[in-house]
């Protein structure tokens, strides 16, 4: 059921344009033998996404023109699933809705997506392998954009799930894009399988919601309907066996919210399902930027925002969200400190920042989370793409131990990278500063159990973030060059098509923060005609549940910001000291730290633990028991062959005589049957 | 059964079987002679009077009646004897639904000049026509003669093939006239339409008034020209006369299905062919040439023109006579056309006949249905 809203038929084109391009590429790849000219591929892919961005902008403008309470654009294509009649009628529409939340997301996805598409032209330019990788890449990229937009614009959970699975698939395809390397294929599978765990929980959540709404007499999976009934849902419980924790009655809303959150964890790489994201860096760098930094991994954050009413009704679940987010943030930040692969550092940084977003959401700061999501999309995409430019310049060398002193050689890349680092580190005035501030304010003012600790974690993470980002920056661009001699002279900035999108992103990384300028700073501009500075939060407000209003005095906010900035600056200076002034020091510290260092460097052995606890037993059980025992022995041996043998025995010795080959004998038997039937009827 | 029906039936039987059919044998000989630059039949005489050889039909009948009726050895006697009857009867009774005049009102009495007028008149003709096939097949089978059987075989294949085309080719016609009732169909053709009216309908350009006078009779042949050609072809093939005389094919299979027939039974086959010629002529006239309608002069126009002078009753009567004459004039024209075709075209080869049916006429007739539907939709505003 589609709730009331302004109909806008333009909406469908936002996802459909990239789909059209993807379908074109798919057809060309699958059915046409000859390679498509590159300019066709480029024009179609980039053009479709850019056009989709334009449509999104137009739709956004239309949305802004509406009254704040009725900001909802609807495009109902057709009834996708229809079942039941009367009161029990259920229908899932193929409908797209644009409300403030999805508008922000759609703009980020198409906007950043367009830039990354353009960037990919340069990045993938040297891909001349015979499987037509260039076109294949753009096909997947377009398909991803389509899926992501379906996810974002869906008006119901089931349609969202379609997009959800679609982005998962594209992520898998793109991580393993260079599939000839077994490791890449392995990483793709890992991402896919870990995501399955989350998806399973998500699916269970959908079923639970549907079932509960059906019990309430209004079966639906549309967000609007769930929201309408959320107060009734809050009273429901699920009976579980008494031996289960918190049994025998679980609150339905909490369960659903937790299921959804597990799904979000999978997609957004939160503890304990974060293990796939660092490995996902095996894919091409534009993919890391688009999928594994800017858009797909934020789907979980988006899901929680979408269902904010549900989480608001389930404080326990919210607390879990906050704590998981906080722990992930600091956990990933510590790991990032020790990594030496440029993309791995960024990957852990992404995990950490996603943790931030969840922290905000758990604390009720949904608009803060979305704000951070947006700014993070800009600066993390920028960082990844700049890192990609570095990697290109280094001829696909990713180890920062082998870089250093690059600022002279590739100064354009250096500048944008620096902007990105400043933004993520939260340098005052940059976008990250404001959004991180909002997150911390949300944590500080929330009523989640232990919110002071969460705040402390947030601040500490901010310091760590600044430290590892500057570490990365100094390792790569400053200090002594560790690049091999002969390579050093041939290094230069990547092609303009690679660099220009970075400038655009750099611009937004600096200034995007002013879209959601907290009131505390907005007041500074009061004299300039700025009345309400926090326009993003005001824009999002009506679509989200009212957060717990933070009535902080401005001075508190300034103090908090100051503390954060101080910590961040400390981190930055520390990095400078350690990696520029005294380059020998880190090694000594690492040696001194010993076990702790190794623990952190090896990512707390999470992968190993999973391998030992889950993967290996599973493989062993599958092989020994399920394959050899059940499949080969029971199903093949007893059921299939045994049945066949039994039937052969019966048929060969007796039944075959019934098959005389004489048609009329068969007819006779048929007649006998008819007589029996009719006789029974007339008895 | 009302007397009126009996009178009408007797009238049509008299005209068709009594007058047209026997004369047709003579007409055919004469026409072929004219076309081949000969004199033609002129020898039979009664006391020296020849009147253009018109006694030949009489002589033929006498000859056929008096000849021995042979049933060959090994033949299935009953079937052999029944076959000519089954061939002839459907031809005669199809005439029951063909209107030879409109409905006339004489005071309180309404006289409709058609023997039977069911809603499904056209279907009736098709149904009856399909029965006629059996005569040929039975004749071919029961004669216990290979030539006959080959003829019967050819006839059965040819006739069921062309039946399909025949039915489909007139679908366009009854789409246009929106009826299957033959009297309604003739009535619908008693009007005219603007020749350039399509300009108005398609492009919305109103025609100048003087062009409104450029009118054609609303006849099937003008609104469904393709259907006319196809229907005439198909129904002539149904009749198995040259150029579609594969079942007889005297140069190939002696005389086909009636090789073993003699005397009046052969005569019946012969007659049924001629009667069918008349039925075809009447049917084509009704479907495509407006039946009894006089072009540009509708029934009301005629009655309206005469009645002030001579009174309504007389005017109606005069109109009736004019209509019946018009109808038979058209029938004669169509008979002439068939004769001309029969003597102009050589016989097809068997595969050509089949190709013509399945590969040319059938697709064309289906296309005709489509196009007709499209045009009708356009004219009716496309709101269907």
């Amino acid at each position, binding site marked *: 059921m589609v709730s009331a809203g302004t109909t806008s038929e333009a909406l469908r084109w936002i996802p459909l344009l990239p789909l059209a391009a993807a379908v074109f590429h798919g057809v060309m790849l699958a059915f046409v033998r000859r390679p498509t000219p590159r300019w066709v591929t480029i024009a179609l892919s980039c053009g479709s996404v850019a056009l989709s961005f334009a449509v999104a902008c137009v739709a956004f403008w239309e949305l802004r023109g509406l009254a704040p309470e009725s900001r909802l654009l609807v495009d109902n294509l057709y009834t996708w699933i229809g079942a039941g009649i009367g009161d029990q009628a259920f229908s899932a529409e193929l409908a797209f809705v644009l409300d403030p939340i999805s508008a922000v997301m759609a703009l980020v996805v198409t906007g950043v997506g367009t830039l990354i598409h353009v960037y990919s032209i340069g990045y993938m330019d040297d891909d001349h392998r015979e499987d037509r990788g260039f076109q294949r890449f753009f096909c997947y990229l377009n398909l991803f954009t389509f899926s992501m937009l379906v996810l974002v614009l869906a008006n119901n959970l089931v349609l969202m799930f379609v997009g959800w699975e679609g982005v998962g698939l594209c992520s898998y395809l793109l991580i393993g894009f260079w599939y000839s390397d077994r490791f890449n294929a392995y990483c793709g599978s890992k991402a896919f399988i870990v995501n399955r765990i989350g998806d399973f929980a998500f699916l269970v959540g959908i079923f639970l919601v549907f079932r509960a709404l059906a019990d309430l007499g209004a079966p639906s999976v549309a967000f609007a309907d769930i929201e309408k009934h959320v107060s009734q849902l809050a009273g429901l419980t699920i009976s579980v066996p008494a031996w289960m924790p918190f049994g025998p009655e679980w609150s339905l809303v909490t369960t659903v919210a937790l299921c959804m959150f597990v799904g979000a964890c999978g997609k957004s790489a939160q503890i304990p399902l974060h293990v796939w994201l660092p490995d996902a860096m095996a894919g091409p760098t534009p993919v890391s930027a688009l999928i594994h930094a800017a858009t797909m991994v934020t789907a979980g954050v988006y899901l929680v925002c979408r269902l904010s009413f549900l989480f608001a009704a389930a404080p326990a679940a919210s607390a879990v969200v906050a704590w998981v987010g906080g722990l992930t943030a600091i956990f990933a930040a510590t790991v990032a400190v020790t990594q030496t692969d440029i993309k791995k550092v960024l990957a852990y940084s992404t995990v950490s920042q996603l943790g931030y977003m969840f922290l905000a959401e758990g604390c009720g700061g949904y608009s803060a989370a979305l704000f951070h999501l947006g700014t993070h999309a800009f600066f993390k995409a920028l960082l990844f793409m700049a890192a990609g430019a570095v990697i290109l310049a280094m001829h696909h060398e990713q180890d920062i131990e082998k870089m250093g002193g690059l600022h002279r050689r590739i100064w354009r890349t250096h500048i944008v990278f620096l902007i990105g680092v400043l933004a993520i580190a939260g340098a005052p005035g940059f976008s990250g500063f404001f959004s991180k501030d909002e997150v911390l304010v949300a944590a500080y003012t929330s009523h989640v159990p232990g919110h002071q600790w969460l705040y402390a974690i947030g601040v500490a993470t901010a310091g760590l973030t600044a430290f590892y980002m500057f570490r990365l920056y100094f390792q790569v661009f400053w200090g002594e060059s560790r690049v091999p001699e002969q390579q050093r002279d041939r290094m230069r900035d990547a092609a303009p098509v690679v660099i220009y999108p970075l400038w655009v992103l750099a611009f937004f990384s600096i200034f995007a923060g002013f879209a959601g300028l907290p009131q505390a700073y907005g007041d500074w501009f009061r004299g300039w005609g700025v009345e309400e500075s926090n326009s993003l939060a005001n824009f999002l407000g009506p679509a989200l549940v009212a957060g717990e209003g933070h009535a902080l005095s401005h001075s508190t906010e300034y103090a908090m910001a100051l503390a954060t900035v101080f910590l961040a600056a400390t981190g930055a200076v520390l990095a400078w000291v350690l990696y520029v002034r005294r380059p020998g020091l880190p090694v000594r510290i690492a040696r001194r730290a010993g076990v702790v260092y190794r623990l952190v460097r090896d990512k707390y052995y999470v992968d190993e633990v999973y391998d030992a606890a889950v993967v290996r037993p599973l493989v062993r059980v599958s092989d020994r028991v399920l394959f050899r025992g059940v499949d080969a022995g029971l199903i093949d041996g007893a059921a299939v062959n045994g049945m066949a043998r039994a039937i052969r025995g019966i048929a060969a010795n007796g039944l075959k005589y019934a098959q005389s080959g004489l048609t009329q004998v068969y007819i006779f038997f048929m007649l006998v049957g008819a007589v029996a039937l*009719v006789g029974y009827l007339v008895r | 059964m009302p007397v009126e029906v009996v009178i009408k039936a007797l009238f049509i039987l008299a005209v068709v079987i009594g007058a047209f059919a026997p004369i047709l044998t003579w007409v055919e000989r004469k026409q072929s002679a004219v076309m081949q630059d000969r004199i033609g039949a002129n020898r039979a005489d009664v006391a020296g009077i020849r009147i253009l050889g018109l006694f030949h039909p009489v002589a033929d009948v006498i000859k056929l009646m008096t000849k021995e009726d042979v049933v060959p050895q090994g033949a*299935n006697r009953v079937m052999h004897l029944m076959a000519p009857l089954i061939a002839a009867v459907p031809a005669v009774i199809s005439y029951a639904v063909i209107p030879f005049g409109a409905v006339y009102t004489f005071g309180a009495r309404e006289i409709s000049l058609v023997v039977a007028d069911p809603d499904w008149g056209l*279907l009736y003709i098709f149904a009856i026509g399909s029965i006629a*096939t059996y005569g040929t097949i039975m004749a071919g089978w029961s004669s216990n003669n290979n030539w006959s059987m080959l003829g019967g075989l050819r006839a059965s294949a040819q006739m069921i093939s062309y039946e399909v085309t025949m039915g489909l080719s007139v679908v366009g016609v009854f789409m246009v006239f929106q009826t299957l009732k033959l009297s309604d169909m003739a009535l619908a053709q008693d009007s005219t339409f603007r020749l350039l009216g399509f300009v108005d309908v398609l492009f919305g350009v109103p025609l100048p008034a003087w062009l409104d006078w450029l009118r054609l009779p609303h006849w099937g042949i003008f609104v469904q020209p393709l259907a006319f050609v196809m229907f005439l072809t198909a129904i002539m093939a149904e009749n198995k006369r040259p150029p579609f005389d594969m079942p007889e094919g005297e140069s190939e299979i002696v005389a086909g299905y009636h090789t073993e027939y003699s005397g009046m039974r052969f005569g019946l086959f012969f007659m049924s062919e001629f009667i069918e010629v008349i039925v075809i002529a009447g049917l084509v006239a009704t479907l495509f040439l407006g039946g009894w309608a006089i072009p540009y002069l509708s029934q009301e126009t005629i009655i309206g023109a005469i009645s002030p002078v001579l009174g309504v009753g007389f005017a109606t009567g005069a109109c009736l006579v004019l209509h019946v004459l018009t109808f038979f004039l058209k029938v004669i024209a169509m008979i002439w056309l068939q004769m001309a075709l029969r003597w102009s075209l050589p016989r097809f080869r068997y595969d050509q006949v089949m190709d013509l049916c399945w590969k040319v006429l059938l697709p064309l007739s289906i296309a005709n249905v489509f196009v007709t539907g499209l045009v009708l939709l356009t004219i009716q505003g496309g709101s269907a």
Partner: protein
Amino acid sequence: MTASVVFFYAFAALAIVSALGMVLNVRNTVASALSLVVTMVALAGIYVLLEAHIVAVFQIMVYAGAIIVLFLFVVMLLNLRTDDFAPGRQKLVKLAAVVIALVVLAELLRLLTTGLPEAPPLPEGYGGYAQVGVALYTDYVLLVEVSGLLLLAAIVGGLILAKRRIG
């Protein structure tokens, strides 16, 4: 007893006799087919009496005009003069089949003992081609489409089965 009832019994008798003639005539397949034509025509007559005119017309057009002609065509094409088959192998089964068929008949006729309602008068224009056409192209349009597909499949199938060699 009105004329239509008399006609009904006449047609019924004709139908039964000719149907029996078809089944019992073991010497001449063509005669069997022709008997079947008589049955068809008699049934068409009964349809007319039951005021199903369109059905009657199609019964004659399709059954008598096309289907049985096709049978005859095949019989003549294969030149099956008489059934000179080898002695049968299943006399007993056939005898049993006859008995059982008669049991079926008894059972079916037993079903009929309950009185059926009198046929009501028909509304104006009932069963005309217009009404049948409208019903066909509205309520039953899917059926029409599907049967069109079926006919196409049958044409192709028949062609392939009867063709001597493909290609």
